[in-house]
């Protein structure tokens, strides 16, 4: 089942071209494709195309690119090189925006304001849930932080459907019962049991700290703190024009202390945003911490000053690695809002859950989605 040498060379070149376009084709796939070429009718172009697509395992999203390259490489005429769009990489741009202006930090709270209560069925908590983050008073904040911790606790305690051995209640596990009975000469004294595993989710929080997100900063940070307290495997990044890992800055403890450390660590707080570059940098430098059990939460308004094509590519790369991608957009609290910015449009196809994040109720909805 050997494929002709000329054909093999053409296949290798074709596979190279696919890889250049970001379609992941490995050597094993090329070998599969070579075998497939010995099985299909080489005079039937459609069948060759279809066979290669099957053997190279080209996913549905990449079919358009695949078909275009197929026409170029298997047309029977000379093979020309397809122009490849230049790949801009964010690395060289990072650090360029390193400036820090303490006066621009606007994390103080808005003016205190009493909730306009006394309506029937009024409950402070219910009011809090609906109140936009940018309209809260200091006492609201304290109440809210307590609520956030409760939410985060619920997030951390997820039951998997997998059964694991337990000492408490559960279904009887005969296999283990008999195995442990061997110790007592086959006499069964104790029944081993299994119960649903407690799943510890891994969460990566990517948080937009640009100027347009300022009014929401404090509350999303409080959410991050609350998560931090109960989820051990949490990584937090801040981004605006550059990406900064702030996991250490958001240490358990007092918010105000951490806030100082945080503002010192994050360059260009309240500046502009280049989401695409920052996410691409995240994928390049930190991509390996995102696994199949990871939920990536991006909190941003999607108002991007940078390269939206880069954003789309970075989101696709994230999508391939993560279990779930959640995009929280505080602007969605406004009923007139439509995700029309180019940045948001580029990112949306790769997002599993796109929701508002302007009040507590919307964050609760996120937790329901995660459950």
């Amino acid at each position, binding site marked *: 089942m050997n494929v002709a040498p000329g054909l093999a060379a053409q296949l290798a070149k074709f596979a190279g071209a696919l890889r250049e376009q970001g379609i*992941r084709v*490995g050597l*094993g*796939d090329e070998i*599969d494709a070579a*075998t*497939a070429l010995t*099985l*299909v*009718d080489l005079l*039937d172009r*459609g*069948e060759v195309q*279809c*066979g290669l*697509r*099957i*053997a190279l*395992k*080209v*996913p*549905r999203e990449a*079919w358009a690119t695949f078909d275009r390259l197929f026409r170029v490489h298997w047309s029977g005429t000379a093979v020309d090189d397809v122009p490849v769009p230049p790949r801009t990489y964010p690395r060289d741009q990072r650090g360029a925006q390193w400036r820090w202006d303490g006066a621009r930090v606007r994390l103080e709270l808005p003016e205190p304001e009493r909730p306009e209560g006394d309506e029937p069925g009024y409950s402070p908590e219910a009011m809090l849930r609906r109140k936009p983050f940018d309209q809260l008073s200091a006492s609201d904040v304290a109440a809210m932080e307590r609520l956030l911790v409760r939410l985060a606790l619920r997030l951390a305690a997820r039951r*998997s*459907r*997998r*059964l694991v051995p337990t000492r408490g209640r559960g279904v009887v596990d*005969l*296999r283990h019962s*008999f195995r442990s009975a061997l110790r007592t000469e086959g006499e069964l004294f104790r029944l081993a049991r299994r119960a*649903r595993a407690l799943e510890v989710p891994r969460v990566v929080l990517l948080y937009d700290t640009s100027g347009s997100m300022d009014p929401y900063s404090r509350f999303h940070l409080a959410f991050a703190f609350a998560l931090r307290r109960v989820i051990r495997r949490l990584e937090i990044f801040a981004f605006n024009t550059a990406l900064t890992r702030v996991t250490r800055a958001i240490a358990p403890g007092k918010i105000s202390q951490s806030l100082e450390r945080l503002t010192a660590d994050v360059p260009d707080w309240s500046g502009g945003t280049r989401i695409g570059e920052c996410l691409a940098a995240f994928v390049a430098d930190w991509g390996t911490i995102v696994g*199949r*059990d990871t939920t990536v939460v991006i909190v941003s308004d999607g108002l991007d000053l940078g390269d939206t094509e880069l954003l789309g590519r970075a989101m696709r790369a994230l*999508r*391939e690695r993560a*279990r779930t991608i959640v995009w929280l957009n505080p602007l969605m609290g406004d009923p007139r809002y439509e995700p029309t910015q180019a940045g948001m449009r580029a990112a949306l196809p790769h997002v599993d859950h796109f929701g508002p994040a302007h009040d507590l109720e919307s964050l609760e909805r996120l937790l329901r989605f995660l459950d």
Partner: protein
Amino acid sequence: MNEAIRALQAAMERDGYVAEPAVATAVYLATEMRKPLLVEGEAGVGKTELAKVLARVLRTELIRLQCYEGLDANTALYEWNYQRQLLRLRIAEREPHDPAALEDLIFGREYLLERPLLRAITRRAGPPVLLVDEIDRADDGFEAFLLEVLSDFQVTVPELGTIAATHVPHVVLTSNRTREIGDALRRRCLYLYVEHPSFEKELRILRGKVPGLDERLARSITRFVQALRRRDLRKLPGVAETIDWAQALLRLGQDRLDAEVVGVTLGCLLKDEHDLRQTGNAAVDELVVLASSPG
């Protein structure tokens, strides 16, 4: 077209599965190259049916492993029949036995409950078709385990030793893409993506599956469903839904589509409350007019 592929396509069609060249090619390559076939596509495009028809064409048994969250290796591979082993031991207490012989007896194949994966590799009468349905529902750990079984086609049972495959089964994996399948598993397979059928294909399926359906009505139904799929819906109706709907209309004695009957039977096609609300009277009227106009 390769003669063998054409023959396979014809055979599948005889068994009631209308296969495009891409599907027939994929099935042919998978059986010839002895590789598992990973089939992806939206719900209701006939992924599971593909495995069933393959078993019929190859005249072999279909062994199905339905995946779900929390599925573990025991459920997929084997389990000892503990109850039976216990009973056997109780009987043995009354009439003294040679302990070694007794042990051999209760850890023999007779006391082993074969689950789908083990059954698939130990089938004696030729290779079966192993359908691993909705692999995206199982968790990652199970996927890794499956990868191991699919690469070696052998299973180790501590009490029995290693059982190697008598025949390597034809494996079909399906996924609805609720979760991305791991790269390692994807690379191990050949890959087929099934789309919603074209007008011609859907009409042919309908003729095959719903005998006695008026030709003009069949065309209207197909045109209606095809137009419905172009709308912005959460869950697009699959071929199975089209067939259900056609059967419903047949039972109701309809010989043509009208807005009233479509309105009351729309639940056959749309199974999402949001989608039903989206497709109101005006939309139904428009679709009915479109579907009833010939050409």
